[in-house]
């Protein structure tokens, strides 16, 4: 395996680089779209159930089906990475819009009432009080979406754009174990690192959580 890596470092690094941005760009886009969507689902309660149901249906569409279906819908080329980015953004939004709504709904109403009584307007209250309190739930959803995206990117290799997935198809075509093993290990490691980074961010931005868990600490 070491020898394979030495001989093919350029190919592997290229695949890894493509994998990273194909997986993480949709996370950022999806998060940016899901935040306002989830908020609307809480602000207008009649929107909550349509939001949850639509998310469920969108999430049940197989990734390979979506990858090949999007070019028809968007008019993009089949081999364009845009299809992968859009497809994974849809999954991220489907997963996160619901989590954001659930997180905001889980905020103790006495907390929001106290904030209102202290003179917070709706928008300031959302940014300064409700979002921080809902953050652990939202970030837990973000972890799931990120890890799922990183493993889903490789399916794109079946339509020619798949980051590390290209190592799988290459190994499969040549009946050669090394590239497949390298691809799996790098993909799992990437997911682990991304997950860890979000956990560290969560620790940094919710310092109060440590005190609650530690009791007197």
């Amino acid at each position, binding site marked *: 395996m070491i020898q394979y890596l030495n001989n093919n470092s350029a190919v592997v690094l290229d695949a890894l680089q493509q994998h990273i941005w194909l997986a993480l760009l949709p996370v950022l886009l999806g998060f940016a779209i899901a935040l306002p969507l989830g908020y609307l689902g809480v602000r207008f309660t009649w929107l909550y159930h349509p939001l949850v149901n639509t998310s469920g249906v969108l999430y049940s569409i*197989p990734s*390979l089906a979506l990858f090949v*279906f999007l070019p028809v819908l968007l008019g993009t080329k089949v081999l364009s990475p845009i299809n992968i980015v859009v497809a994974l953004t849809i999954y991220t939004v489907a997963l996160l819009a619901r989590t954001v709504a659930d997180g905001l709904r889980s905020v103790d109403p006495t907390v929001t009432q106290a904030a209102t009584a202290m003179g917070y307007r709706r928008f300031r209250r959302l940014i300064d009080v409700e979002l921080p309190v809902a953050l652990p739930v939202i970030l837990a959803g973000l972890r799931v979406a990120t*890890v799922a995206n990183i*493993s889903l990117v490789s399916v794109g290799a*079946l339509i020619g754009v798949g980051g590390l997935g290209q*190592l*799988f198809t290459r190994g*499969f075509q040549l009946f050669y174990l090394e590239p497949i093993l390298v691809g799996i290990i790098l*993909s799992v490691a990437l997911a682990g690192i991304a997950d860890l980074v979000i956990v560290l961010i969560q620790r940094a931005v919710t310092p109060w959580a440590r005190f609650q868990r530690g009791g007197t600490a």
Partner: protein
Amino acid sequence: MNLSYLFDPEHWQFGVAGGFPQLILSHLGYSALALLFGVIIALPVGLYIGHTGRGSFLAINAGNAGRSLPTLGLLMLMVTLLGLGLLPVLIALTVLVVPPILTSTYAGMRAVDHSVVDAARGMGMRPWQVLTRVEFPMALPVIMGGFRSAALQVIATATVAASVGLGGLGRLLIDGLAVNDYSRVLAGAIVVAVLAVVLDLFLALVQRWVVSPGMSGQARRAAT
């Protein structure tokens, strides 16, 4: 959008190789087998961990580890090791469904109110009876939730079986792409998506049927 392949009645005849009925059946076959093996492996382990509280580390981390494992890579790894055939596909799909079933079984068992378990013990139930008559029925809604998400995932992922030469609805996607027949690709994508949604609705009905009326609140509604 060209839907001619999807609505061509010739592709809907039974018993025709490569027709929709045959592809749907093989697709459901792989998925059902993987779910069966997944339940056989994950359910007892999850129940044991939830009942005894031993090894909870495994149950909690199985979910994350499973999600991060790329199924396509695992499938191609298995084919390279074992050769072409049904076995590598079943192994890859089973590995996919074990984590959600295991994690939800454990979570369901943990969520059972401790005082109910104590009451059952106080009434003289044996540990086996507590498990089968109290804990399992009470954990069932959560377990079914995990099973449903596992079923959705496996239906979606079984399409990759076609990439290693097996059947299922992935054939339409892979073959259609190979010969630039987008009408076929589109037909495959639509049928898989519809199949996933229909299966989820069916499992929602199954869930309503198997979950004890005392758990879903229907008994209370009927009594008042």
